[in-house]
């Protein structure tokens, strides 16, 4: 087994210094390049190129900028960075001037590209005042620092894991090394730090698993280090399947080398020579970027054989998932790597005894690994400065739903949720008007639905969610405004857990089918008195499933019965004030003179408009309630609640 301990006992005394000098050489080259990145010789425009920026058209912006620069002959460089965090203003670009001033602008449209080039040539704040988001570095006086932007008001003064996001080019190994990557590795190998010390410092730092279960990472690594045999594996769970969570994506697209280094250190600290990153298929850009970063690291002796010239070896591979949520469960993930169906199995044996290819393995979340180098680079005490007693440090959270500003933040544990909602700009309706909070969704489909009044008592810590029979989960939090019925979300999550059940336990695949049927029936306006007791029965039954997928799948429905009982009871009685449950409203034409009605009649995908101009009627029996006609003629067509259903028969 190759480990840090064996390196200490078995090699010549000068190996440590050769590792250090090899690393110092990498740093020297990296610093030289990075110096000109921070203070370029000519102004440089960096286009954000993460998944969200690309979805918002940043590739087109880049194309236009490149063409304009080439045509005008302007001396402007074009580069790449990751987005900074506020996704609602994507696509963003930042301009860096030779004096080191860097300013972030967005949202950039194709029409504003020429202004952008002018701004780069003439200096900050001359042509694009309306697009300025904030200043990332340097001093120019008038423009406020990005750190003072309201969206980041809950973040600590300095970011930790995302410290280089929006500043470095994520594809550049030199940028990563110049900002501290692989320093901890060089120190561990160069000083031949005993492997146990690495794990002890993680325990001292209080680092817990970021996948949701919050198990102490150092302790988990101790299990693997103490496992039998010489061949161990470290596995990274990057199958971030919770809808509404994209924390791992940000880390992998923005800081790929922090994940690589974290896994490398895990390998050194647990006697493993092989690592797998199981990455979901929905993140093609993250797959690309991780594979490129791994190749770069191999080319520079940071991965593969003879790391930094020592006799240590660590190989890392990306495994591309194929769209199975249940592979996010660790035993499902392990069997998926082994050429088979990704079905979870009963634990024990735990992966630390029987994992990939039946050998001892350790599975951690992306962010867990990525946090490790930072703790070793600083100290455990430094890491514990932020966070709470039970959960130390920071983690990345993603916020979406009916909020003004969608995006991600790196927040210390213990941040109050109400403050976060404020920094996201509060609840906004689709029309951009202010609205009221209705529900909070945390932890994905196996997570929770929390009522609006819980927000004042919630802080980002597991213990704070527990009294609501809720979990904080893996970093995705969705704020839902009034205007959506809770059963709409229940339908979504019930469908999801039913579809994604692996099918091994009858409790899980049968129970979830039953649950989805009941929810759909209530939505269609045929709720029954005995639905609640039946849902409770399904819930009890699902607790006997083998894995957490089955056990946690009725959780959102249970939360609805606990926290949204009135809305549920109303829906059973056929009454829905939000008019979003398809079986509880019909469409009514309130203004026959509206000229838009003719277009509304042609948009109907089912052709259910009857009559002619001035005398339209809608045949509700064929209507699929897609709402397209209301999109076209909102003033002429309205939803009207149906009278309460006579089919509801109370239980005697």
């Amino acid at each position, binding site marked *: 087994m190759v480990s840090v301990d064996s390196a200490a006992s078995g090699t010549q005394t000068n190996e440590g210094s050769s590792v250090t000098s090899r690393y110092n050489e990498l740093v020297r080259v990296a610093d030289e390049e990075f110096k000109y990145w921070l203070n370029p010789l000519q102004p440089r425009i960096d286009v954000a190129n993460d*998944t*969200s920026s690309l*979805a*918002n058209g940043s590739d087109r912006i880049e194309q236009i900028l490149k063409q304009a620069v080439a045509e005008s002959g302007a001396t402007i460089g074009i580069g790449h960075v990751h987005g900074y965090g506020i*996704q609602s203003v994507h696509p963003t670009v930042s301009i860096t001037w030779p004096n080191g001033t860097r300013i972030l602008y967005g949202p950039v449209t194709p029409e504003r590209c020429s202004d952008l080039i002018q701004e780069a040539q003439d200096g900050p704040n001359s042509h694009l005042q309306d697009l300025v988001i904030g200043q990332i570095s340097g001093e120019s006086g008038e423009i406020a620092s990005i750190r003072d932007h309201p969206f980041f008001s809950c973040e600590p003064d300095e970011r930790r894991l995302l410290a280089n996001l929006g500043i470095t080019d994520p594809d550049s190994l030199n940028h990563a090394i110049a900002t501290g990557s692989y320093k901890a590795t060089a120190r561990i190998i160069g000083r031949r730090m005993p492997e146990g010390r690495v794990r002890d410092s993680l325990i001292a730092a209080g680092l817990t698993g970021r996948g949701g279960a919050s198990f102490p990472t150092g302790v988990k690594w101790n299990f693997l280090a103490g496992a039998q045999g010489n061949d161990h594996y470290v596995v990274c769970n990057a199958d971030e*399947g*919770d*809808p*509404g*969570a*994209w924390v791992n*994506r940000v880390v992998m697209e923005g800081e790929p080398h922090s994940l690589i280094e974290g896994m490398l250190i895990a390998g050194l600290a647990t006697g493993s020579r092989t690592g797998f990153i199981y990455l979901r*298929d*929905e*993140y093609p850009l993250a797959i690309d970027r991780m594979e490129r970063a791994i190749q770069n690291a191999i080319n520079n002796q940071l991965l593969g054989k003879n790391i930094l010239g020592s006799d240590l070896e660590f190989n890392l*591979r990306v*495994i*591309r*998932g*194929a*769209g*199975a*949520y249940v592979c996010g469960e660790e035993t499902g993930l392990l069997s*998926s*790597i*082994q*050429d*088979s*169906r*990704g079905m979870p199995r009963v634990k024990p044996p735990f992966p630390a005894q029987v994992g990939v290819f039946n050998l001892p393995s350790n599975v951690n979340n992306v962010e867990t690994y990525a946090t490790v180098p930072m703790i070793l680079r600083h100290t455990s005490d430094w890491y514990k400065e932020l966070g709470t007693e039970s959960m130390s440090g920071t983690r990345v959270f*993603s916020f*979406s*739903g*009916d909020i003004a500003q*969608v*995006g991600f933040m790196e927040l210390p544990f213990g941040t109050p949720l109400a403050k976060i909602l404020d920094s996201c700009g509060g609840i906004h309706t*689709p029309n951009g008007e202010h609205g009221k909070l209705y529900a909070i*969704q945390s932890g994905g489909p196996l997570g929770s639905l929390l009522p609006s009044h819980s927000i004042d008592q919630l802080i980002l810590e597991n213990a704070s969610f527990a009294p609501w029979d809720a979990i904080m989960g893996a970093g995705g939090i969705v704020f*839902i*405004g009034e*205007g*959506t019925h809770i059963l*709409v*979300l229940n*339908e*979504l999550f019930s*469908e*999801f857990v039913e*579809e994604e059940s*692996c099918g091994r336990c009858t409790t899980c695949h049968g129970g979830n089918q039953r649950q989805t049927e009941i929810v759909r029936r209530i939505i269609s306006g045929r709720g029954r008195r005995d639905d609640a007791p039946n849902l409770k029965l399904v819930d009890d039954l699902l607790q006997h499933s083998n894995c957490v997928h089955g056990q946690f799948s009725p959780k959102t429905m249970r939360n609805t019965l606990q926290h949204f009982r009135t809305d549920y009871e109303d829906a059973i009685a056929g009454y829905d004030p939000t008019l979003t449950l*398809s079986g509880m409203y019909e469409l009514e034409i309130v203004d026959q003179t509206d000229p838009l009605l003719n277009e509304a009649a042609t*948009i109907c*995908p*089912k052709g259910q408009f009857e009559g002619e101009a001035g005398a339209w009627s809608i045949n509700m029996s064929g209507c*699929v309630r*897609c*709402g*397209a*006609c209301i*999109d076209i003629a909102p003033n002429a067509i309205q939803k009207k609640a149906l009278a309460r259903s006579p089919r509801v028969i109370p239980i005697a």
Partner: protein
Amino acid sequence: MPLETESTLRIRSIIKDFKPNNGDLLAALYAVQHEMGYLSKEALAVIADQFKMFTAEVYGMASFYEEYRFDPPAKTTIRWCSGPACRTRNSAGIRDAILATLDLNETGEQTEDGQCSVVVGQCNGTCELAPMIWVEEHKTYELPVGKLTAAKSIKLARGLRSGSGIGEILNG
């Protein structure tokens, strides 16, 4: 082992570097589907041969995963986002509107002429665009179309059904 034909040779060359019991099967299936568009019976047999497995085992494995197809894909695939941020903004209505426009009964089906299909997509965290879909044409591109309404999605689906390119529909 299947008889060697031009297409089996092609599949064989796609997967020649993959080894059994090495965690390569997912990657092999992906590579073949990416090149050929879908996993035919023939492809499954060739892959099984390479991995020293039964064809049924390979099919059993592949069919577990959402992303693998066993029939040729439609010319254009509409991947409808099923996430919560989209759902609070009438994405269910958008799905039903697209299905109704294309005369499909449920997601996963394709139109009879093979022009369009609708599949369920998973949230990838671009929720500022909610509600959204991705329009995919095999091997050419995957285009996110965001901030949709039911009416816009019907226009889009009608355009795709009549054979227009997505670029034309969005700009026209």
